[in-house]
């Protein structure tokens, strides 16, 4: 039924925001990880979203999905700590390019987007329920 296309849009949005949340949590968990793949510190990751067609050709109803996970190529943070096992010859340690404050803000944004999706779903459902009341005496 066409009515339920809205549910698919909301579902895709909730799923996408949850994946974004997973990425943010991973970033925050690895804020001090000095050993990731290829021997480098952990690189901050981000998600790219793209439009998901619900009904092909219907531009009024478009969901969202995760296109890809990208790595943030900004430079690592460097601190001086010669006692660290991963320090280089000069005593400098490279730490992940994750900013906890930035991740916190992203987390709040994700949460608000999730909340907004749920609110729009509830409103849609209320509209549907109101429709059923049409003509009821």
């Amino acid at each position, binding site marked *: 039924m066409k009515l339920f296309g809205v549910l698919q849009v909301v579902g895709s949005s*909730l799923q996408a925001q949850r994946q974004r949340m997973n990425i943010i949590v991973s970033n925050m968990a690895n804020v001090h990880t000095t050993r990731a793949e290829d021997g480098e510190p952990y690189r901050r990751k981000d998600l790219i979203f793209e439009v998901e067609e619900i009904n092909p050709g219907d531009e009024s109803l478009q969901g969202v999905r995760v296109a890809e996970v990208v790595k943030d190529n900004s430079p690592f943070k460097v601190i001086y700590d010669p006692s660290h096992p991963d320090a280089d010859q000069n005593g400098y340690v490279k730490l992940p390019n994750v900013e906890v404050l930035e991740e916190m803000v992203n987390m709040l944004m994700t949460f608000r987007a999730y909340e907004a999706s749920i609110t729009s779903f509830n409103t849609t459902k209320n509209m*549907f*329920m109101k429709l059923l009341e049409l003509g009821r005496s």
Partner: protein
Amino acid sequence: MSELKINAVNSTITSQNLHSADFAKSHSQDGFEVVLKEAMAKLVEIQSDTNNAIQELANGGDITQAVIALQKAEMAFQFMIEVRNRLISAYEEIQRMQV
């Protein structure tokens, strides 16, 4: 006796419909029944989708899809209930008719 009269009234109504309404050409006499059956089939389909989603959830599937499927089933069920209520009230209306 009264049953006979109702039948007679029914047949005049249906024959009038057959003659006047355009949709009678495309739909058979049991058009409404077919529509109702299709709607019920759709409802059953939605409910089995929900079952599948919940089964998948039990096997480590995605909770969002399960919740969405549940909501979908709930809305379809409400819709079905509403159609049923309208049908019953129409039937009662006819029952109260003076013959």
